[in-house]
């Protein structure tokens, strides 16, 4: 009953001084907006990272050999590893430096990589035209290549590029297949890939060892087992080798680990952004306190009158506390509404799926209520403690 009346009084006081109330609210509005929008963007970024990693396949395991001097991993070893029951495919990869030239035009963006047929399955890539690399290509060290869609159009002006030729480090290679475009993802596009037989890449690099390879587990449930198999294989291969200066000779990680690491990073970032934004909410709270203090001294006489006609300390305390609460709560709700608008506006610009997380929305509202109470407490208490006679005789 009394509470309802206090709300009515608070609304009246706020409506009676619209400009000031709005400016006071602005602090909270901006604070809530900063928190909500930044957290939404942070989570949107996280979601898009997760999505693109998941697009790479969840049963993927990557191994990088970091040992510099001696590398015992070779094709025979890898073929042996492929026999493991938890492992479906293995594919070594080797980046090849050198510029691809179709005719006289160099394709600078082309990324030349040597690999084996298993790579197609591991990455889940599709061949749009022609065929992927085959085992005979590897065995015969054939001068063939499978290229990405963008590579095809850049080099030949068409994706129907099977049978075309290009030169690489003085060798002439024939295009035997064009990949289906898969767009952008976290591992990069396949569109600018130029895939050649791994044996050919080794020849070009004059090396017989394998410095990185991909493995796919038979299913996503078996990823851990497959990873263990890869680690055991590498541990065995490196037995007796001295570690290099930073102690590790190889690194094995699976997609979910990568996902965790990346999510953790973006989540930390989100938290940091939210934290910084929360400071502005705090500043908004101080603004409320400031205005409420001004309001208390402006309304000293009103407080005196109210006390003379029977308002108790509690009544006055409640009145001012509810007033600051209503200001901050309205600021919070308005901030949330504007945030929704801002998020809708920003989503297409940032090319992200943005949405305000429900828990963050509640948190922002809760926090603004908290701020209203905390920063309203001091002025309200000050008002309630005024002695009725002093307040009545106050000339302000």
């Amino acid at each position, binding site marked *: *009953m*009394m509470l309802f*009346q206090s709300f009515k009084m608070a609304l*009246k*006081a706020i409506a*009676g001084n619209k400009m000031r109330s709005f400016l006071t609210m602005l602090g909270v509005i901006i604070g809530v907006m900063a928190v909500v929008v930044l957290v939404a963007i942070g989570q949107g970024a996280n979601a898009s990272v997760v999505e693109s990693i998941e697009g790479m396949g969840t049963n993927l395991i990557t191994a990088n050999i970091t040992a510099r001097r001696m590398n015992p991993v070779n094709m025979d070893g890898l073929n042996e590893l492929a026999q493991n029951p938890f492992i479906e495919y293995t594919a070594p990869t080797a980046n090849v430096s050198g510029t691809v030239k179709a005719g006289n035009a160099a394709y600078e963006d082309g990324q030349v990589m040597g690999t084996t047929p298993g790579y197609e399955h591991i990455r889940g890539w599709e061949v749009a035209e022609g065929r992927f690399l085959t085992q005979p290509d590897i065995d015969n060290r054939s001068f063939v290549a499978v290229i990405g869609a963008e590579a095809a159009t850049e080099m030949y002006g068409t994706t129907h590029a099977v049978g075309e030729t290009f030169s690489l480090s003085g060798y002439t290679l024939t295009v035997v297949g064009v990949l289906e475009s898969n767009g952008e993802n976290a591992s990069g596009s396949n569109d600018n890939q130029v895939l050649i037989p791994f044996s050919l890449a080794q020849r070009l690099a004059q090396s017989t060892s394998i410095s990185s390879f991909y493995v796919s587990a038979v299913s996503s449930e078996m990823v851990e087992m497959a990873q263990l198999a890869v680690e055991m294989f590498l541990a065995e291969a490196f037995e007796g080798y001295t570690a290099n200066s930073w102690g590790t000779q190889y690194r094995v990680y699976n997609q979910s680990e990568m996902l965790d690491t990346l999510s953790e990073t973006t989540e930390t970032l989100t938290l940091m952004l939210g934290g910084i934004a929360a400071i502005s909410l705090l500043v908004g709270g101080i603004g409320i306190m400031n205005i409420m203090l001004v309001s208390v001294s402006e309304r000293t*006489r*009103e407080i*005196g*009158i*109210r*006390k*003379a*006609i*029977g*308002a*108790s*300390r*509690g*009544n006055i305390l409640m009145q001012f506390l509810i007033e600051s609460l209503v200001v901050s709560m309205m600021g919070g709700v308005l901030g949330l509404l504007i945030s929704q608008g801002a998020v809708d506006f920003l989503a297409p610009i940032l090319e992200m799926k943005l949405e305000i997380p429900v828990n963050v929305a509640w948190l922002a509202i809760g926090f603004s209520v908290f701020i209203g109470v905390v920063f309203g407490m001091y002025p309200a208490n000050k008002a309630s403690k005024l*002695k*009725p*006679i002093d307040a*009545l005789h106050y000339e302000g």
Partner: protein
Amino acid sequence: MIEMKDVVKRYTLGGETIYALDHVSLRVRPGEYVAVIGPSGSGKSTLMNIIGCLDQADSGTYILNGKPIKKYRERQLARIRNRQIGFIFQGFNLLPKLSAFENVELPMIYQGIGARKRKKMAKEALERVGLGERMKHRPNQLSGGQQQRCAIARALAVKPSLILADEPTGNLDTRTGREIMQMFKELHEAGNTIVLITHDNKVAQCAERIIRIEDGKLYENQEVPDDDAVPVV
């Protein structure tokens, strides 16, 4: 009704102790119309503050409606002010942002009276002081006399046992002042207990009993040692 015994109120001003009320004893019976008259600085405002439970005495006893005030806490004093005392001030002391009706309603809100009953009582009180037509007006849209009548309505609405008026005509012209005094007379005839505080002899003459206050001491009737000390305005 009001029983004061040896009430003392001191102030310290510049290291000097001033007795605003110097062992004051006063008795007001229900239904009485008492005027307290004295020059400014005589302690009459202090007396009113203590009678009105806005302030408490340093020593002595004050019994209002049979209950000693000394023992009360802030909250209970607020309750007494709310239910038993109707204040009427020189400066009207209406809340400027509220309408006449809302001003009258306010003490009843603090009493926790339900909306319907409250509206009825506020309307009655305003009609009684002749402001039935101006309930929606704000204080600044009312004349001084109307504002004071509104304040009277606010004091009356809760049916207090004591009406306490501090210079009710101080801010009004003579004619309006006379109207307000007429209203007090009617309230008295209706059985209300009224304590009127003023420095104006003519205003005081309207009451049935006149008490003079000077330098914190009360004198009744011819007891005043030096009649010339009372300024005649």
